[in-house]
C-alpha cells in the first residue's frame, strides 16, 4: 500500500467513524429537534473529540517512547507511566485534597515523568540485542508501582479513583467541561511532530545523533516529557487505554517506515481511528448500555498484537 492510499483510506475511515459517533447514543435525536443541538454540543461532540484526542496522542506517545528507548515493543501503557501518574494523583488527593485542578494535573504529569525517567534509567544497562527485556522491564515496573498504588488506595479508601485511572479507559463520562485536558495531550503530540526529525535521528543511536549536532540527552528529555504529559492527561480524564501506542506505530512503520515527519500524522490518525472505533463498538454491542472502549481495545488489541508478531513485513519497498 502506498503512503498516499493509506492517507486517503485513513481519512475516509475517520470521517465515517466521526459521523457514526455523532449519530450513536442512548438519546434519540432527530433533525430539527431543539434537544439535538444540546445533546450534540454537550455530549456527543465532546465524546467524539475525546476519543480522537486520546487515540492520536497515545499513538504518537507510543512512537516517541519507541524511538527514544530504541525498542519497538514498548508503549506508555505497559511501561509503568500510567501507574506513576496515578501514584502522583493519589498522593495529591490524600495530601492536598483541595488543591486546584491544574495543580493536580501538574503533579500527575511530574510523577508520570518520574516513572518514564525511572524506566529509561533501568533499561540503560540491558543488553541491546535482547529486545524483549525492555518491554518486560516496563511491565515489571508498572506492576510494582501499580501494586503500591493499589495498596495505598485500599488503605485510604480511594480504590474507586484508582480503578477509574488504571482500569480500562472509557468515554461514557465525557461531557463538555470534563475532557478539555485532553487538548493538552493533543498539543504535546503536536509538539512531538515539530521535533519529529530529532526523534528519528536519535533512533540512529546516540553516536550518530551527536555526530549530526544534536544533544541526545536533550532530545530524550523532550521525548519523555511528551510521553509523560500525554499519559498523565489521558489517565486523569478517561483512564488508561491499552495497545494503541503499540499496535498503531508498528503497523504504520511497516508500511511507511520511520521517517517520522511523514509518518506521525498517519500514526495520529490511526490512533484516533482505533480508539474512536472501539468506543463506537462498545456503545453498540449492548445498546443502550455500554462496554468501555478500553475493554474492547484489550480484546481486539491483544489479537492485533499477536497478528503483528506473526505477520512479517514484506522486504521490498
Amino acid at each position, binding site marked *: 500500500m502506498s503512503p498516499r492510499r493509506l492517507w486517503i483510506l485513513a481519512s475516509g475511515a475517520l470521517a465515517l467513524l466521526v459521523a457514526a459517533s455523532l449519530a450513536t447514543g442512548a438519546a434519540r435525536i432527530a433533525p430539527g429537534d431543539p434537544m439535538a443541538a444540546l445533546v450534540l454540543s454537550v455530549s456527543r461532540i465532546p465524546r467524539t473529540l475525546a476519543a480522537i484526542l486520546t487515540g492520536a496522542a497515545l499513538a504518537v506517545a507510543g512512537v516517541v517512547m519507541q524511538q527514544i528507548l530504541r525498542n519497538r515493543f514498548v508503549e506508555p501503557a505497559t511501561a509503568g507511566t500510567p501507574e506513576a501518574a496515578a501514584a502522583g494523583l493519589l498522593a495529591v488527593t490524600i495530601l492536598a485534597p483541595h488543591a486546584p485542578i491544574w495543580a493536580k494535573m501538574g503533579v500527575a504529569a511530574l510523577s508520570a515523568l518520574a516513572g518514564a525517567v525511572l524506566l529509561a534509567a533501568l533499561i540503560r544497562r540491558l543488553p541491546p540485542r535482547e529486545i524483549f527485556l525492555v518491554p518486560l522491564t516496563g511491565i515489571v515496573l508498572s506492576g510494582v508501582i501499580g501494586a503500591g498504588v493499589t495498596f495505598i488506595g485500599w488503605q485510604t479508601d480511594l480504590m474507586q479513583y484508582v480503578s477509574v485511572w488504571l482500569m480500562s479507559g472509557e468515554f461514557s463520562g465525557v461531557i463538555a467541561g470534563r475532557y478539555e485536558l485532553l487538548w493538552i495531550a493533543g498539543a504535546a503530540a503536536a509538539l512531538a511532530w515539530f521535533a519529529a526529525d530529532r526523534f528519528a535521528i536519535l533512533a540512529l543511536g546516540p553516536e550518530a545523533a551527536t*555526530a549530526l549536532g544534536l544533544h541526545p540527552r536533550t532530545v530524550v528529555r523532550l521525548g519523555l516529557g511528551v510521553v509523560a504529559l500525554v499519559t498523565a492527561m489521558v489517565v486523569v480524564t478517561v483512564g488508561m487505554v491499552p495497545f494503541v501506542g503499540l499496535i498503531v506505530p508498528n503497523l504504520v512503520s511497516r508500511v511507511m517506515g520511520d521517517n517520522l515527519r511523514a509518518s506521525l500524522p498517519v500514526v495520529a490518525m490511526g490512533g484516533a481511528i482505533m480508539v474512536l472505533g472501539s468506543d463506537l463498538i462498545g456503545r453498540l454491542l449492548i445498546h443502550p448500555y455500554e462496554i468501555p472502549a478500553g475493554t474492547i481495545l484489550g480484546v481486539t488489541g491483544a489479537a492485533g498484537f499477536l497478528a503483528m508478531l506473526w505477520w512479517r513485513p514484506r522486504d521490498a519497498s
Partner: protein
Amino acid sequence: MTATGIEISGLRHAIRGTEILAPATLTIPAGRITALIGPNGAGKSTLSRLIARIEPPPAGTVAVNGLDVATTRTGRLARELAFLGQHTTLASRLRVRELVAFGRWPHCHGRPGPEDHAAVARALDDFDLAPLAGRFLDTLSGGQAQRAHLAMAVAQQTPWLILDEPLNNLDLAHARALMAHLARLRDGGGSILVVLHDLNFAAAWADNVVAMKAGRVIAEGPPAAVLTEDRLSALYDTEIRVGSHGGRPLVLHHL
C-alpha cells in the same frame, strides 16, 4: 587564516581507572588522508571518538580547525566534522534516501533546499546507492547498509571526515572505491582521519600514518616511514615483512 588541522594536546581517557588512552599530544594535518593503525585495543576508536566529541574527554583538549570540541556548540561542530562510528545498527526503519538526507541536518535542520537535495543525490551516486534509494535499510546487506551510512557522513560535506573502520563489511571493490572517493575528497581540499585495520589500504592511500599501541601514539609520518618491518613487527608483536609496490610499502602480513 584560521588554524587548520586537528590539534590534540594532553588528551587522555580512562574507563573505571583503566587507562584507554595515555596522554597524547599530536597534530593531524589538514588536506591529507591520515590513517590510524594499530592492534586491537590500541585506543584508535577511542581517539577518533574523542576527536569527534562522541564522548567528553576527562582531560586534555582537541581543536578541529581551531574549534575547541569541548566548548564549541555541537551544531557548529557538525558542520566542521562528520563522524561515522562502528555501531551503526538501526532500531528504526528508514529508507536509504531518508538516512542519507539526515546527513544534511546540520545544514538545513529539516528544511532541505536545492543544495541539500543535490548533496544527497551526489552521495547516493558516489556510493552506488541510487538503485537502492527507496529500499528500507533493514532489507539491505551489511555492506550495502555500511555504504548508506558512509553516504550520510559524506553528504554532511564537512571539511573533516572521521571514519572508524569504514571498510567493515565492504567487499573489495567497494573498499577500493571508498578509498578512491576519500582521495577525491582530499584532492578537493578535504581532510580525512580514518581508522584502518588493513595496513595495505593505509600504505596505498594514506598520506600520513599514525600508529598506536596500548593507548599510546608510537609512530607518525608518511607511510614509507611508519610501515617498516621493524616498526610493524614491534607494533603487532609478530614478525611482519614489508615489500614494495608502485613506490609504496606493501605489507606482507599474511605470509
